[in-house]
């Protein structure tokens, strides 16, 4: 009995060893398609779009290139995994959010896309200039923009019509006015519908700095010759203006406090509890799907803090980074894959399926895009807003942006709970971020 068991175990061991050896052989072989791995952070509808694009690329390049796409969780989680790999190159190409850009540049793991642009004589002007500006530092295009978005004002058009509102607000002065008319109160005094509601999302804070035409950090918003060493939003007064608006909105009950992130705000908007909200262009498709016939969805520009603000929005979302794996065959294959992902046809499909911008100018000429715009004119607003901004509002680059964003959100949460006032919140944000930045710069440069 024992002998038989031992024999079985030994047999199993031998088989598994044989498999282990076998799998190594297939990797080592030089023939066959070049295999590259693509890490992304797109779940849900967006993730399905990625999967079908990758499948199409693989079908087109059968026998030559084989891309494996791996969903790695949210941007934050994916970023943390890449970081934890400590430069062991777990993949060939990785999608990183906008605020991870400075970290990636400093990491030394990256092969700037510019190198292949040069090698391949590829014309950078194919990319929307306001999008390319974000990822171009000192004339070098570091990563390939892929899923670009800006924030928008979404509104319940049915509610607007009922209240007789025809002009979509473009600044907070106008939002206060309109929200008052949209507010519906139950007989018992509780609010049935708020006129406006927004999530506690640090991205909005960053956008409003650009909308005021002001910098978030020093040293030319972290894009100069030297990296950022301190925040600027406390010195130039922009931060306080934003937090004062946020404070007023919460304190006067114009918006309920809808927690960190945008999930709760989105849910409240879909169910009709708030009549206006702020969200990324990338949420357009899922909002349309989730709202269905409940009400008509309207879209407007991301509102100014003050009527006479002169700046513009910057692109958020993510871009695709090539990792410096040192394997030329794989890097060549990665470049082919990149070109495919941003080709006009693919970008038009990507736009239709998700709501992210087509980052390629020529995508606007495709049939797919034209049909979609005709069906959902809301997409056009996002594109107009992008064209109306300018490269100088491209937004800050900051190594510790994830922490900075969390810090801002933390102080807004305290503001909502009245444990800090507007002035104290801005001072706290600046103090915490500067301290973190100082330590980061000390150990990393």
């Amino acid at each position, binding site marked *: 009995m024992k002998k038989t068991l031992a024999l079985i175990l030994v047999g199993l061991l031998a088989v598994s060893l044989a498999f282990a050896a076998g799998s190594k052989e297939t990797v080592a072989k030089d023939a066959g398609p070049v295999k590259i791995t693509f890490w992304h952070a797109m779940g849900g509808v967006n993730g399905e779009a990625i999967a079908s694009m990758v499948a199409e690329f693989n079908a087109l390049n059968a026998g030559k290139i084989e891309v494996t796409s791996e969903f790695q969780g949210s941007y934050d989680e994916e970023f943390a995994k890449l970081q934890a790999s400590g430069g062991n190159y777990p993949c060939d190409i990785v999608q990183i959010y906008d605020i991870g850009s400075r970290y990636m540049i*400093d990491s030394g793991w990256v092969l700037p896309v510019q190198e292949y642009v040069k090698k391949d004589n590829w014309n950078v002007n194919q990319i929307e200039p306001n999008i390319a500006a974000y990822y171009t530092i000192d004339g070098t295009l570091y990563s390939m923009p892929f899923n670009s978005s800006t924030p928008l004002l979404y509104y319940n058009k049915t509610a607007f019509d009922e209240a007789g509102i025809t002009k979509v607000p473009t600044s907070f002065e106008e939002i206060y006015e309109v929200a008052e008319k949209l507010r519906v109160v139950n007989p018992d005094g509780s609010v049935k519908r708020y006129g406006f509601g927004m999530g506690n999302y640090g991205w909005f804070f960053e956008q409003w700095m650009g909308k005021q035409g002001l910098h978030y950090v020093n040293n030319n918003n972290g894009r100069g010759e030297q990296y950022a060493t301190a925040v600027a939003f406390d010195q130039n007064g922009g931060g306080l203006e934003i937090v004062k608006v946020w404070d007023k909105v919460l304190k006067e009950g114009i918006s309920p406090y809808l927690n960190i992130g945008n999930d709760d705000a989105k849910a409240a908007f879909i169910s009709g509890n708030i009549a206006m909200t702020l969200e990324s262009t990338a949420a357009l498709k899922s909002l349309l799907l989730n709202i269905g016939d409940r009400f008509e969805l309207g879209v407007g520009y991301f509102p100014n803090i003050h009527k006479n603000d002169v700046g513009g929005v910057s692109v958020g979302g993510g871009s695709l980074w090539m990792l410096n794996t040192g394997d030329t065959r794989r890097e060549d294959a990665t470049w082919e894959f990149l070109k495919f992902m941003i080709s006009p046809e693919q970008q038009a499909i990507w736009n239709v399926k998700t709501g992210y911008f087509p980052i390629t100018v020529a995508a606007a000429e495709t049939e797919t895009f034209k049909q979609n715009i005709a069906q959902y004119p809301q997409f056009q607003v996002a594109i107009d807003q992008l064209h109306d901004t300018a490269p100088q509002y491209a937004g800050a680059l900051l190594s510790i942006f994830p922490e900075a964003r969390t810090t801002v959100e933390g102080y807004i949460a305290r503001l909502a709970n009245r444990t800090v006032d507007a002035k104290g919140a801005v001072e706290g944000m600046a103090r915490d971020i500067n301290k973190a930045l100082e330590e980061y710069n000390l150990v990393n440069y």
Partner: protein
Amino acid sequence: MAKNFDTRAVRPAIKGHHFWLEPYLFLLPALLVFGMFLYYPFFRTIFLSMFLTNKTGHAKIFVAFTDKDNYLTLFQSKSFWASVAVTFRFVFAVALGGLLIGLTSSLLTEKKYRGSNFTAAVYAMPIAIASAAASMTFKMVLHPTNGLLNNLLGTQINFTGDVRYALASVIGLTIWLTSGINFIFISAGLRNVPAELYDSAAVDGAGYWRRVWSVTIPSISPTLFFQIIINIIGAFQSFSQIKLLTEGGPGDATNVMVWSIYMDAFRNFRFGAAAARSVILFLIVLVITIIQFRFEKRGVNY
């Protein structure tokens, strides 16, 4: 098969002085696994806690016993002490709440009645639910404007974003999640209480509550003790509820130590500070475990 094996008959064939190595060879596989996954990370954490680390987590500047010391920085930070206090409140409430609900539910299903199997299944169900999935569901239930709970109560309370409710919400969810395993273990414990004890208590004229207090509780005290330890350890490790419901906020209201370790290491790139927090958490858990075993000698009847 089972022959008596006389080791002396075999051993002398090998030279005696080789023997000291033999037991260690047998231990080697276990030591390798433990070393790799337990001891190495443990000592590495202590090592890292003495440094400022760069963005990839490599020790860069030795700061122990200087004014930038990770521990010193923590001890000087208000947020850290708030986090310690929150952790204790959280662990205390969850360990006790989970135990009480487990005890109550298992007493309720102790006697068989129509449908008691169904009730038992309901009480045990939380074991089968992943904390992340439960948190996502609760996020909807607790939604500030159109959540189920607010609709039922007719209120508009922000359960996860209001300092007054955030910790209670996370505690409530965690208690519910731990109640299932408490129910199973305590139910099993109840089955092992000898019926004679109840019979003689009944003869002595003890009512239900008296029997529970004087017979049941002392008889299952080893199970209760075991469950408290499991609850405490589990509560110290709670993470997904915090991440998905409150992100440690608002302010430091739900900033338990495990969450702050995660934030320092994986969002703020400060592995040194995260390591220092881990070491402190380790010491806290160590002290609690020692106290528990001291207490066990006095309070538990085996």
